[in-house]
């Protein structure tokens, strides 16, 4: 044995194996879940964060939900596992909005579990809603990478989310809202997440044209695909100089060119910021799915806690919560009261920036009010 051979890790010597796919989900199911798979009868919300699920077999399972920061160190994941081993027979799941769920068969363990999670992990129990009563909790914010990992963000993700959730914490742990309200955040217009169809969303936006570094463009970019990436036709190839030319009157700072080409960075500390959208919806319940609509075109990036963004989101949420009927999501509420009233009640300003002029989007015209009917 030579020294070098000793150094090789097992992972460096195994044969490469591909395309075997993810673990089969069945392996991962708690025995009660496996047994009652497809045979659940109904559920009841016991308290915020705790859903009692009753199977046709009579089996009962308590699903207990906790908020998570999504960005987890493996040490916290191990803590979560410890808790799952202790309370949940070694099984757990994450929800589609990044919450953690444990499965309990003994209702007496619910309170100890909640206490232990809060103490060990600091994760709050909640994020659920009770449709029967029409009482809703706020759940976790779906979000993206931001300054933690991505190269194209116009703002951070986790920092704003943390700041907003700190402020809205009680809505998570309690059922104080009249209807479902989904908040999302994306750090750039790529909108990794459902920002384009959420009740309230935040999206990082630029407000200045990209800076073209001709050298870098020449070195690192495929010019035709960069030009093609521009939705407004603001870019033209400059064949001679092997770079691109930007028509600044056409550019709306979407950053799609930068996604394609590192040679034209668009970030700009003072002018980047956050736009707020509202009224998106995905479920078919009562009212058809809707795209989110921009109600604040820009708020400053003000780290570490983005107070302007936090307060605007809170203001919208609470205005809605005060005025909406049971089950009335923001889209439905606005449909009833009119956008006139939305702006009046929230105190937000309607400006020409909120009138659609994105020609690629096929909805532009449908957004113009072809009617003399409106409220004052």
């Amino acid at each position: 044995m030579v020294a070098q051979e000793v150094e090789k890790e097992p992972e460096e010597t195994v044969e490469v194996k591909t395309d075997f796919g993810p673990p089969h989900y069945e392996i991962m199911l708690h025995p009660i879940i496996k047994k009652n798979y497809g045979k659940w009868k109904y559920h009841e919300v016991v308290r915020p964060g705790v859903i009692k699920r009753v199977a046709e077999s009579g089996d009962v399972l308590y699903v207990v939900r906790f908020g998570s920061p999504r960005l987890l160190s493996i040490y916290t994941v191990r803590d979560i596992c410890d808790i799952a081993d202790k309370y949940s027979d070694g099984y757990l799941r994450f929800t589609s909005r990044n919450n953690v769920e444990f499965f309990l068969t003994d209702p007496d363990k619910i309170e100890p579990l909640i206490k232990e999670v809060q103490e060990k992990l600091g994760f709050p129990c909640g994020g659920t809603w009770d449709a029967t009563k029409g009482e809703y909790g706020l759940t976790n914010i779906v979000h993206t990478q931001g300054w933690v990992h991505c190269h194209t963000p116009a703002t951070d993700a986790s920092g704003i989310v943390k700041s907003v959730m700190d402020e809205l914490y009680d809505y998570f742990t309690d059922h104080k809202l009249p209807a479902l309200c989904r908040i999302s955040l994306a750090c750039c217009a790529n909108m990794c997440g459902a920002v384009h169809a959420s009740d309230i969303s935040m999206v990082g936006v630029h407000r200045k044209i990209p800076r073209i570094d001709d050298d870098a463009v020449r070195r690192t970019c495929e010019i035709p695909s960069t030009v093609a990436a521009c939705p407004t036709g603001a870019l033209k190839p400059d064949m001679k100089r092997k770079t691109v030319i930007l028509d600044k009157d056409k550019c709306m700072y979407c950053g799609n060119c930068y996604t394609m080409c590192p040679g034209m960075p668009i970030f700009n500390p003072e002018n980047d910021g956050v736009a707020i959208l509202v009224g998106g919806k995905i479920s078919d319940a009562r009212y058809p799915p809707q795209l989110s609509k921009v109600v604040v075109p820009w708020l400053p990036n003000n780290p570490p806690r983005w107070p302007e963004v936090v307060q605007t989101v809170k203001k919208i949420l609470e205005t809605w919560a005060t005025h909406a009927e049971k089950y009335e999501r923001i889209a439905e509420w606005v449909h009833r009261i009119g956008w006139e009233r939305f702006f009046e009640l929230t105190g937000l300003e309607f400006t020409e920036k909120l009138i659609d002029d994105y020609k690629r989007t096929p909805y532009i015209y449908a957004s113009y009010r072809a009617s003399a009917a409106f409220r004052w």
Partner: protein
Amino acid sequence: MADVELPETPLLDELEKGPWPSFIKEIKRAAIEQEKAMKAGKKIKLPGAAKGLLKVLELAYEEKRTHWKHGGIVSVIGYGGGVIGRYCDLEDKVPEVWHFHTMRINMPAGWFYQTKALRAICDAWEKWGSGLTNFHGSTGDIILLGTRTEYLQPMTNALAYLDKLYGSPAPFDIGGSGSDLRTPSACMGPALCEFACYDTLKACYEFTMRYQNELHRPMWPYKFKIKCSGCPNDCVAAKARSDFAIIGTWKDEIQIDQEAVREYAKVIDIEKQVVKKCPTGAISWDGKELKIDNRECIRCMHCINVMPKALKPGKERGATILIGGKAPFVDGAIIGWVAVPFIPADELIEKCCEMLEAIWEWWDEEGKFRERVGELIWRKGMDEFLKVIGQKADVRMVYAPRNNPFIFWRELQE
């Protein structure tokens, strides 16, 4: 923890305050614990990564800008996707995270886990990566946040032999990225939810397994996403976030347990909460019996949501396929629209596979670079798309018929 020194991060420290769990605490914890583990003799290939991240992030907060650069092409043997290359523009200042690539790991359908599996992943990532993760990425993958190019392959191998090397009940494979099939996802469906109109987990798993090649080797015009929701509530946001959304539904009559309705009547206001809220006025309630005019019902789920004990989707179950959902680039954000109004549950997986394959072939042929399938359909017309998937036009595909008489009569042209 006092023996581990962290960089000064006055701005980030602000984000440790407040009741909501803090991602900064997580990064700090990784920084501290990985260093401690190393000191305790554990094999740690990438010491200081989390600490490096703290430095980069503090700077980002100071300067209000990212310090991450385009990734270039980094990948693992046999695969074209699954890794997001990432470099830092502060190479000199923070060499620990000069490389900071992300790995996307295909989660089990429905995000169900045994702790054994999770622990194994943690162990491997403690060794080969930053010790930081996302549970989960917004497509649904397990995101392993940050490692160096040379550790990508060993980490991939660690996952591929996670059962043998780390005691996981099963190995884990890489997820999608780039112009490929992205990791399909599914709501918990029949595993926990009484509303599921088809087996979302099975469907998701089947697609994933059948299209391993499409998932691992980007070769299309752009990305393609499949999401499975068991009912129109759409708990994985499939309509908005996937090119091919499978939304469980039913065709026959809502099942009613009148006794249970009367029980609900004691605690809720059925008239106000259910009858008045039905979008089509299909429900009536006389204090004794709930009547649903199923010809008027559009299967929106509202009444069932409010009274899950009393109401259930019908027995003739299956799914609606919506096509084209996506984020705003280039032709604008799209919520997917109806491509097939109903496929019975027992034919669902096969029919979807047939359609998927036909769509991919067509898109591969006709799609422009970075053109999502929804945009292609829009460019080419539903007419052509319907031929591709072998479907007849159905009024349920539209909110309303066209408002212009500019119709192609291709069959009449010689």
